């Protein structure tokens, strides 16, 4: 009897401008996406603890720009791919990456960075089989954005320290509009969670 290699798993991206409900939405999406009795898991932002560590000493330093933070996001994603996502996919799991690359790319666009540079940055990340946008409800849109709830919130809380031009709420609104465009063009499928 020979061991047969497990069927390759399925990578699903769940992107969001407002991250407060992202974890529960990711678990919900995993439940929908995985095959009956199929195995699966979620991979979340800051699994490598980069941003947690950064938040502990960032106040004593010159604030990082969106570009610096995006490079660090890429480092965190590289870690997630290596230790969480790719091994799980190789075992045939369904993995919901929440968030994946599109959140970072659009956050960078909202901050004015070049689209080409942003897409080049994430060239190392495999394309997901499906991509969703967690459409925020009214409560999420109205809630005060907490810095550690997700990457966009963390990024804009730092850039807000650089200049009043980077107001956190306004930047999140811009990001929200970019997500709406992506959903409108069909690049991302909308996911609403009650």
């Amino acid at each position: 009897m020979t061991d047969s290699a497990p069927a390759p798993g399925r990578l699903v991206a769940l992107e969001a401008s407002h991250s407060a409900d992202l974890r529960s939405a990711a678990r919900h999406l995993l439940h929908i996406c995985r095959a009956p009795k199929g195995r699966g898991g979620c991979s979340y932002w800051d699994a490598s603890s980069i941003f947690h560590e950064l938040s502990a000493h960032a106040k004593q330093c010159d604030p990082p720009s969106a570009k610096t933070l995006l490079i660090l996001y890429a480092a965190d994603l590289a870690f997630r791919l290596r230790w969480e996502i790719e091994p799980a996919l190789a075992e045939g799991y369904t993995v919901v990456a929440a968030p994946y690359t599109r959140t970072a790319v659009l956050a960078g666009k909202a901050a004015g960075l070049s689209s080409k540079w942003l897409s080049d940055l994430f060239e190392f990340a495999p394309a997901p089989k499906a991509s969703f946008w967690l459409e925020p409800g009214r409560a999420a849109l109205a809630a005060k954005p907490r810095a550690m709830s997700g990457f966009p919130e963390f990024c804009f809380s730092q850039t807000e320290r650089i200049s009043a031009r980077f107001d956190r709420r306004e930047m999140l609104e811009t990001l929200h509009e970019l997500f709406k465009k992506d959903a409108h063009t069909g690049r991302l499928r909308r996911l609403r969670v009650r």
Partner: protein
Amino acid sequence: MSSKPARPAHLTPGELKKIIAELEQRRGLLIAFEGPDGAGKTTQRKLFRTWLKGEGHDAVTTKWNSSELVKPLTRTRKSIRVLSPLEYCLFHAADYRHRLETEILPALCKGKTVIADRYLFTGLARDAARGLDFHWVLRLYGPILWPDVVFHFAVTPGTSAKRVLAGGVPSYYEAGQDVTGISDPAASYEQFMGRVIQEYAALALIFRFSTVDAEKSIYEQHRAIRRLFQEGERRSWQEYNARAVAEYLMCRPEAHND
């Protein structure tokens, strides 16, 4: 996908052009010291800085992997040997980016001469030697702020190994043990440094660095550096660095008013 270069939304193209032209008038020089470990860069950088000060330059130094924001993150991960070549590359790029925006460009805009003890070419050489795609790494560091002068200290792998090993055992990543798979740090260093030196030689050729023969005596090297510096030409920001400066002004909108 749009490939338009970034431009600060709060500035019109005309305003941006004017600001870059104004900065060009008052900016200081950016001088990079590049080469493998053990090439004698730090010694020469110190001698050069002393000489520059004597010549009336207000000179500051920035060192590779020294961002107060990013360095603690990198140090922790290096100590437990957990970085893949890709992560190693990204941490150093983030460190460079933060220093570029908070140390290098602010100092240049204030008219100071910035001496970089290693610049982004170190990242390019080491990451390419670790097997990453050179063009991807080059784009990661883009848009590049080109130095006015890059001094490239050329040594053989044997000389580099001899000098570094005289000071002790190189660290795990310095020796390239993460990619060579060789358990002996000295043997790994010599093999890895051979690759790094090859990458530097290619970079020196492509980007026309001012090469210094680092096998020569300290005094001879210092004389060569002074001569190369005096013969060198200031690199126009409008011509070479407009994109990099525009992106800086986008990320730090009030920077040019400081």
